[in-house]
């Protein structure tokens, strides 16, 4: 039986398996069809139908169940996550697992299409060390991403001494997992 205890391990392994079989497009299709539209359809129901309130309900449950070290900052305009220690990426680092080029892309791979459907855009960075931040705003809202500490204060992950990494991936008002630039 394939279990949920080591899910992140065989999930990441599956990205690599799919990429070998059908290239990057197949991995993108998997994140969209299997994860965003099938597995996480409860997230889509909440967020597409209830917007920011749906985000609060979804991530409060799921991040607590996964025991993620994180801080949520939520207003009427923006939903921000500061992930200080991602349990998913942390599992891979702890166990030395790396089958796929960038595991962190899977979050944008399934959350991006969902946010597009819900009418939101995403500002996001991940540093490949289990730390990232997200800001979700309505597509019509032109507000740029917050400066460090401006929105989440001392909880802003960008203030942590170990935030800087060799490469940080940056997403600017997008919902596409490939629409990123690497920042050194």
């Amino acid at each position, binding site marked *: *039986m*394939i*279990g*949920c*205890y*080591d*899910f992140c*391990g*065989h*999930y990441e*392994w*599956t990205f690599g*398996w799919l990429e070998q*079989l*059908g290239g990057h497009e*197949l991995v993108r*299709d*998997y994140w969209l*069809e*299997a*994860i965003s539209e*099938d*597995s*996480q359809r*409860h997230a889509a129901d909440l967020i597409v139908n209830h917007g920011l309130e749906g985000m609060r309900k979804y991530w409060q449950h*799921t991040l607590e*169940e*996964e*025991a993620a070290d994180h801080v949520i900052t939520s207003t009427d305009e923006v939903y921000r996550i500061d992930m200080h220690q991602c*349990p998913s990426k*942390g*599992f891979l680092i*702890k*166990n030395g*697992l790396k089958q796929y080029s960038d595991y962190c892309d899977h979050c944008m791979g399934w959350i991006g299409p969902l946010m597009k459907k819900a009418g939101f855009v995403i500002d996001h960075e991940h540093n490949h060390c289990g730390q990232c931040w997200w800001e979700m705003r309505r597509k019509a809202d032109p507000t740029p991403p917050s400066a460090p500490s401006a929105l989440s204060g001392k909880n802003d992950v960008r203030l942590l001494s170990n935030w800087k990494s060799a490469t940080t991936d940056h997403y600017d008002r997008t919902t596409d997992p490939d629409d990123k630039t690497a920042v050194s």
Partner: protein
Amino acid sequence: MTREISPLPYTDTKPVGAADFYTAINATFRFIFNRFGRDGLLHYWHELGARYYAPVSQQWSKGGLHFVAEYWRAFFDAEPSAEAEVSLHANEVCVVVTTCPAIRHLRAQGREIVPTFCQQCYFVSESMAEPAGLTVRVKGGNGSCVQRFMKRSDCSAAQSMEDIATAL
């Protein structure tokens, strides 16, 4: 023969996994089946067992049935709401699953379960067992089953797919 390290090849900081991940496992099977058919899904299960779970096969090769029993006890202890008894006998390890945590959660969430979901327990485990000179036979499914692990030389009858229930 006992070990101080975990019988599980990959360990987490929390003792039990998050049940919501079962929906992703089920959706992954559906995606691969829809794209590549039954042969594609069987190939995925085989590769997962042979490659991702290769460290388990290596442990079973070293420790035989004793390590098989240790592995499945630790495995079900880490799955939320699982009810399973693992017993070690002279020639086999018997895993009696009275509540499959995956089927239980998928039903509770009202998810459409891939009909061949329970066949993973044969195909993945068989790929893990074969390099260690072991084999598995599965009977039941759809929420409860019996899985028997034994030496390949002690088992002549092939696994019947009719013995594995369709998941509903």
